[in-house]
């Protein structure tokens, strides 16, 4: 006791400046010296609650039994656990020295002093009797400062307090197994608010009067709720991909990333365009047994963004069909499924998917209701082990069972799940693009000169419209059939270069040996296209014609995502595709000039619907459900 008291007081008197001298025997904690940094200013930060400050039976230094909570609730409390004989300079004496410094500050600021309480509680009731605590407090407590020195009746009374404050105390024994009178412990001081919530915990490296006083003032600050983290420092279009990588190939690349906290949206009337198709699109086909209703759309929408629809709760439909990335993924050429399993083809966009008569790149499904089960059950996509597994899971998740019953008159089933998801997909209608207004709206200002020239090429010299159909009343921009462009052939039959150019940072590329890449590559799945469905050799490497609506939003392109830009796609066709025995005869070298290539690209960019932001905003408003 005497030693410890001397030590504490000695430290206080000397200011411990000597401890920083070069040959000092000890390095002492920051709390003894001047703070080495400017603390964040009062009220500029928040101190979230990190647990409750529990009650307990304690004794005052007068020996009076009280509840620990009787010292909490009316004002913020700093609570320190110590034992009076502690000789670890950076342990209990530090806590007491810091409290002493705070006391001195409070004496100079009586208003603040009246608003805060210091509590020092011993965890050595065997030695630290109330009388010992009274002696310990001598020279420490001061007028006008509310500082209590507490102990407990016994270790039995102490233990629940220690365990609720997670103070792990270990008695240190000597080689003979006798208690040395010292304890090993992690020094902790607690800041407790008037709701008896712990708002900060300080250990040796953090304990400093300046930061503690600022924290108290921050707690007392009435304007604590102003959270500068919500400030918008740079308004950017919130409905485009959040991770902006345009010009990443150049050294001058500059990020324009969007904050996830700003990814909030607004629900839209998704039935509107199902009822009345936008300019340029026909009426939405609806199966007689599954007419689209708003209730079905809403249920399908919830399912679409629910990551629990996969075996390990990590994959919703929207993880590959990302709304702000054109309802596909701009971030990879071919998809990955759960556990990172490789999917061999590019995620197709879901814009206007309701008009598709063939689904998947190889056309192996014909209705959306059936199609949704493909990804749900594929081992390399959402990996649900069975249909029953999905249905059983839905029946015990949220209020799905009730919602299904309300919408379909029966619970989740193979049929109703497909009907709900298909209904949401049918609502992702997007037309009335500049092209539509030009072509079908008689708006002669809708297309620029370059776009008009591009359209002329599209339907003329370049003959794109032979497959990407434009009708007299509307345009799906796909023939819903299959063609061989040579891209699939090259991948299956070609021999790649010995080196691969790989980008390692903005503007920095390295030519890497294929052998090195092979060391970390799994065997790649082959892809034979439409042949995989028909088994007809003539269908080798044929893939479905994708719609070109919203093509500007759906990079990268082709069934394997191998072309990064629309310009690369036009240049590919300008070269006449890749020769192979099944190359579609429609694909011929086009002999387009650079100007014509650019005009075609301009035209393709005029195919973006007028409501994509609205659909993305609606998607942002949908809940993203995760495991609970």
């Amino acid at each position, binding site marked *: 006791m005497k030693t410890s008291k001397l030590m504490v007081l000695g430290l206080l008197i000397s200011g411990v400046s000597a401890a920083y001298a070069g040959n000092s025997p000890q390095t002492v904690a920051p709390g003894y010296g001047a703070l080495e*940094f400017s603390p964040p200013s009062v009220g500029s930060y928040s101190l979230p609650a990190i647990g409750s400050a529990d009650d307990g039976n304690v004794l005052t230094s007068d020996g009076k039994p009280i509840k620990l909570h009787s010292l909490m609730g009316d004002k913020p409390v700093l609570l320190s656990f110590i034992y009076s004989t502690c000789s670890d300079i950076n342990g209990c004496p530090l806590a007491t020295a810091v409290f002493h410094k705070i006391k001195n500050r409070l004496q100079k600021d009586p208003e603040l002093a009246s608003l805060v309480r210091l509590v020092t509680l011993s965890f050595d009731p065997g030695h630290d009797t109330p009388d010992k605590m009274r002696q310990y407090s001598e020279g420490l407590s001061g007028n006008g400062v509310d500082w209590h020195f507490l102990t407990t009746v016994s270790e039995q009374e102490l233990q629940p307090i220690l365990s609720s404050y997670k103070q792990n105390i270990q008695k240190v024994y000597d080689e003979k197994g006798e208690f040395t009178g010292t304890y090993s412990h992690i020094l902790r001081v607690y800041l407790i608010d008037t709701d008896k919530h712990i708002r900060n915990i300080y250990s040796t490296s953090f304990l400093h009067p300046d930061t503690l006083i600022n924290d108290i003032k921050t707690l007392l600050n009435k304007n604590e709720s102003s959270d500068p983290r919500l400030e918008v420092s740079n308004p950017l279009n919130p409905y485009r991909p959040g991770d902006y990588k345009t010009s990443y190939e150049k050294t001058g690349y500059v990020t324009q990333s969007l904050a996830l906290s700003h990814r909030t949206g607004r629900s839209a009337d998704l039935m509107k365009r199902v009822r009345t198709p936008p300019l340029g699109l026909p009426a939405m086909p609806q199966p007689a047994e599954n007419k689209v209703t708003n209730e079905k759309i809403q249920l399908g929408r919830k399912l679409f963004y629910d990551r629990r629809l996969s075996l390990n709760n990590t994959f919703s439909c929207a993880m590959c069909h990302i709304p702000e990335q054109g309802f596909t993924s701009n*971030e990879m050429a071919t998809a990955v499924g759960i556990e990172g399993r490789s999917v061999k083809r590019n995620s197709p966009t879901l814009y206007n998917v309701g008009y598709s008569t063939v689904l998947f790149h190889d056309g192996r499904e014909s209705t959306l209701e059936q199609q949704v089960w493909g990804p749900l059950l594929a081992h390399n996509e959402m990996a649900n082990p069975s249909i029953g597994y999905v249905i059983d899971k839905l029946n015990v998740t949220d209020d799905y069972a009730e919602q299904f019953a309300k919408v379909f008159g029966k619970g989740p089933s193979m049929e109703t799940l497909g009907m709900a998801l298909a209904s949401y997909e049918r609502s992702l209608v997007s037309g009335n693009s500049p092209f539509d207004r030009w072509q079908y709206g008689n708006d002669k200002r809708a297309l620029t000169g370059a776009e008009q020239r591009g359209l002329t090429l599209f339907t003329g010299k370049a003959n794109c419209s032979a497959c990407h159909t434009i009708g007299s009343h509307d345009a799906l921009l796909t023939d819903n059939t299959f063609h061989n462009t040579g891209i699939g052939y090259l991948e299956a039959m070609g021999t790649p270069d010995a080196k691969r150019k790989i980008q390692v940072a903005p503007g920095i590329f390295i030519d890497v040996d294929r052998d090195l890449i092979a060391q970390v590559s799994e065997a790649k799945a082959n892809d034979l296209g439409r042949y995989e469905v028909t088994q007809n050799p003539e269908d080798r490497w044929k893939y479905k014609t994708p719609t070109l609506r919203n093509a500007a939003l759906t990079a990268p392109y082709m069934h394997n995502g191998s072309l990064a830009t629309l310009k690369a796609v036009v240049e590919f066709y300008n070269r006449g595709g890749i020769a192979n025995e099944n190359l579609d005869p429609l694909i011929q070298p086009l002999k387009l000039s650079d100007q014509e290539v650019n005009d075609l690209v301009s035209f393709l960019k005029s195919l973006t619907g007028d409501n994509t932001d609205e659909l993305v905003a609606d998607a942002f408003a949908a809940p993203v459900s995760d495991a609970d």
Partner: protein
Amino acid sequence: MKTKMIKPAQPLRNLLKVSFFAVSTIALSGLGSLSVQADETCMSPYMAKIVGQEDFVYVWTLGMEGVGDEQDKLVTVDVNPKSASYGKVINTLSVGGRNEAHHSGFTDDRHYLWAGGLDTNKIFIFDVHTNPAKPKLTKVITDFVAKSGGVVGPHTTYALPGRMMITGLSNNKDHGGRTGLVEYTNEGEYVSTYWTPTDSNLQGAVKTGNYADGYGYDVRVLPRRNLMLTSSFTGWSNYMMDFGKMLNDQEAMKRFGNTVVQWDLHARKPKKVLDVPGAPLEIRCAWGANNNYCFTSTALTSKIWLIYEDKEGAWQAKAVADIGEPSKIPLPVDISISSDDKMLWVNTFMDGKTRGFDISDPFNPKQIYEEKIGAQVNMVSSSWDGKRLYYTSSLLANWDKKGTDNEQFFKLYHWDGKALKQQFAIDFIKEKLGRAHQMRFGAYSLYAANLPVQQSVLAKHP
């Protein structure tokens, strides 16, 4: 390892050596809190640490299809040379599923080990103090994504006083790289989410260069400077993707972090976004009392970067050395700083090498040693005295090498200051365990109160 110590930290280390605790292998209480440490040395400054011989290494191990029970597990290896089971696996604890087991970290009282799964976002909390030889799974956090508001990929679990700071790698909206930090109490209760600054919301931080990508990876702190640093890797789509597939995907290769963020540790607010292109991964801060700098290495551009406080008190980033031949993409992965701030070990995954850099002059690291550890190598963990270096093989389940190059091991080497000498190796495939990833040390001496009488001899080492 050189034992000559630099001035500022010397008194403390001497003090630690003559620790008055009955058990001399550890430093506890406030004493430990002042020094930063090496791996034993790379953990949080706020916890007890082993300064003598460690008894155990806990290896957070990825389940592997076709190997043993195929699921993630915490593997306990006896590493005390005085033990009869030295160099042997003495316990395995399977947790269910393949979660992309990755990193782990102790709470500040070192009673619990938190181990994250980058894929399923589960955090497994193991009691390592009741019986350090046989950790027990006491809690699994399953709602990390929901609670955090969409952070995916719990990576570093870093001890702060009474709390854990957890870095994310991704998010539940696009599985890309934008993410944040998530704070939990030691009891496993969610506290708060801190989003990494992006252009549309820099949150008051200064974008010092071209990038504010919002990506995340590792976190380290220097409390005396009120400094918290985070680095940046890549999102779920890439870290879960087959490595070869990703290297061949030009879009995917654009999705890597190029930033280190300086945060106000006390306020948990970002202050400065520094350009560090090429995926800066592990951060290791120097621990000399006046050494205000940290190192990181960039995985793709193969450089050592120094993050340092300049004379004006501003934090800066500078590329200070190449690692191997960057044009061959050696892929630097884990790094480990020695307790005297003299040596930085850097592992390169592709060539399976560990490289020792002399960092006496932090602005001019020089490679002074290299050794091939295996066909592939990822993690390196150093004992407090730098004499023992442990190595494991796995980087990420789908990034590990394929075929016979997919060696999975845990190896101990001794370092005498001149050369590494292998002591033992455990083949994690032969033992039906899986992919060996991150290592944390355990010792009976940390939990004196729980020390079994018959085992007390283990804790006593000179």
